[in-house]
């Protein structure tokens, strides 16, 4: 029995060593985990880009920081996730309060708004927060005890579903596999996939069918809007808030116009009430290359980030 237990202990220790080495790789390369993990390992910041995947892919903090001359201490990071997890609601609110540097004052907060992030699939539009997808599924956003620890073991334990991702990356790297999704330290999600027009058109077709179907079923959620205002109130105490509506493909812009006709008006009213600038690119939809129906291609992201920075500079220099 003694030698049995000895061997078993040795085995468990060796296995533990292997696992620690694996986590060490992830410590140096958090981007190899998945498309979200890196965001929970970077230090807290005083300025944030918020929203869903449109913002995650479309807004480059690097470009904005350079234009606005923000340094290591005041730099903006992208803390937008995707439609499901970072839809505006109680979880995202918690996440934002957790990622923000304590006691910071002169931050910039860019909230990318889309009609989809205010919707719910449930009937009860007034108090439905417990039925929100991201709440029910206990998604990572707003559900971790820390959003700025490297390695973030809690995330790795609870949410790292494809733990072979490091090997997968190594394999793709070796065979020189095109099509890379890469999350940068500043939070920008770089999407470098096949931009051949027939492939893109196919993607647009499938996505449009899905979005049209979804649009028929979802409703405006007053709870989400309540949390939107709560987030604004929280952020305004710590800096300036801007709304931005990202450009999308022509098809998507039309779809949103058809199914959510009052959305722009609603955003304008909210912006005015809180004395916020609403920078709206929706009318430029179709002008920039998208990878599918609503995500900007990486070179389009650069252009939009520059344009947005120009607007920010203009507004900041012309403060009333």
């Amino acid at each position, binding site marked *: 029995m003694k030698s049995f237990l000895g061997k078993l202990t040795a*085995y468990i220790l060796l296995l533990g060593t292997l696992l620690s080495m694996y986590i060490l790789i992830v410590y140096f390369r958090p981007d190899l985990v998945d498309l979200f993990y890196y965001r929970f390992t970077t230090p807290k910041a005083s300025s944030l880009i918020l929203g869903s995947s449109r913002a995650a892919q479309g807004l480059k903090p690097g470009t904005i920081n350079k234009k606005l001359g923000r340094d290591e201490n005041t730099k903006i990071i992208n803390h937008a996730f995707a439609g499901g997890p970072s839809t505006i609601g109680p979880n995202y609110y918690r996440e934002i309060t957790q990622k923000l540097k304590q006691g910071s004052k002169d931050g910039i907060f860019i909230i990318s708004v889309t009609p989809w992030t205010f919707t719910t699939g449930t009937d009860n539009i007034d108090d439905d927060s417990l039925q929100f997808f991201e709440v029910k599924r206990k998604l990572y956003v707003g559900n971790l005890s820390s959003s700025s620890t490297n390695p973030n073991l809690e995330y790795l334990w609870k949410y790292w579903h494809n733990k072979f991702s490091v090997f997968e990356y190594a394999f793709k790297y070796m065979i020189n596999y095109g099509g890379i999704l890469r999350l940068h330290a500043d939070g920008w999600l770089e999407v470098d996939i096949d931009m051949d027009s027939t492939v893109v058109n196919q993607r647009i077709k499938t996505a449009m069918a899905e979005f049209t179907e979804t649009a028929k079923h979802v409703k405006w959620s007053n709870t989400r809007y309540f949390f939107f205002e709560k987030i604004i109130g929280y952020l305004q105490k710590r800096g300036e808030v801007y709304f931005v509506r990202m450009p999308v493909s022509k098809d998507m812009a039309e779809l949103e116009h058809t199914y959510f006709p009052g959305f722009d008006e609603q955003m304008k009213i909210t912006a005015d009430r809180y004395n916020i600038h609403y920078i709206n690119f929706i009318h430029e939809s179709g002008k920039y290359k998208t990878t599918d129906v609503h995500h900007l291609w990486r070179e389009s992201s650069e252009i939009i980030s520059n344009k947005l920075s120009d607007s920010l500079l203009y507004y900041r220099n012309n403060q009333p």
Partner: protein
Amino acid sequence: MTFNSFEYFIFLPVVFVLYWFVFNKSGKSQNILLVLASVFFYCWADWRFLALVIVNALFNYYMGISIAGAKKEKTQKHLLWAGVAFNIAILGYFKYFNFFYDSFVDMLNFFGSHANPSSLKLLLPLGISFFTFQTLGYLIDIYNYNIKPSRNLLAFSAYVIYFPKIIAGPIERAQKFLPQIERKRTFDQNMAIDGLRQMLWGLFAKIVLADNLFPVVHGIFSNSGSETGSTLFMGLILSTIQVYFDFAGYSNIAIGTSKLFGMRLMKNFDTPFFSTNISDFWNRWHISLSSWMLDYLFTPLSFVLRKRKKKGLILSIMITFVVVGFWHGANWTFIVFGILNGIYYIPLILKGKVIKSSLGGSTKIFPSATEFVQMLGLFLLLSVTIIFFWVNNIAEAFTYLSHVFSPSFFVFPDLKRVVYIIPAIIIFFVIEWMTRDKDHPLQFSGQPVYLRWGSYLIIGFVVLLAFEKDPNAFIYLQF
């Protein structure tokens, strides 16, 4: 609690330590612990039907003693029939009530009168098919004078509820199992280490392969209307392999676990896909069930029908396989699964002899071309039956199969979702082929230490990475 859950890997070491360090004074104390631990294990999964397991243990314990104690042969026979009827009635009530009721309603509706489908939706007690068949065999063995009834209620209860096998088998024979559990077990290091290695191999098949294949196969089946024929064909093959990895992996974990407690369970899978004919296959696939069916159903049936010679054999085979199918679940799809397997036997019976597998004990490096073609052909025939595990009704299976043989069969299949898993499957079968004479592939003999430990570490690491806290329900649990 399932074997691939996180809780199990807390439960198992605790029971192990208690078993060998605290309750190790006598066979009796060991069995007390095993019963307690098994009750805990069963209740963790589903406490509502614990009473059913207890009833099974008590009833069959006393029934066994009564059958053996009866003076007249006729009384023995009556008691046996009463025992069989009682066990089957419970199984029938919980597992098949809805099926019969709904089928009856369908028939009434077919003939014009209207009745409502059953509103009583009974939950399936965990493991009921496994422990019911186990104790049925026990009673029949006593009647046939193959064994003496157990006079040790504690040991007998441990036999019924023993946690490594309560949920999904193997369906143990009293003859092999009772002698082991009735005496005090002493720790055997080689056996325990072998158990751990077997568990490791089972975890690999279950967690790394089966659980990763499941979403792929499920995706193809739930989207079968719009997939190409070639992808559907791939789905057919992968679905069969998935069921094998899932159940064989689970069985290896069960058998390995049991070795840690000094008890051998029977082999449940013996490289079934290297079989060259259907009879060979059923000698090596879910052995604890197929050998049960052979001894307690097919043999009596063919005895009764022996005057009809080959016709009697065919009839016996067909009945046996309908029962095998029905054992899997209360659905017509399983019955079709059984009938097809039965039909596959007919050429063998007509030919007059069942060809013994030429591969069984051979140590050849490669199979011959003929054997290889036979293995492949048999595999495809079997996939056509295992598809019935995956569909909701018979029509769905036929639609699926008809879509396989469409012009898009010649389109290149969608391999993107299986890039990583196909090499893993190939490696698995190559290893299985090379170690087919062993109990399990990790039973090394004579290899250098770095090779042995290297294998354990790599497999353990891969299992750790593949481990999901929220695993798919084991496909055989519902049977």
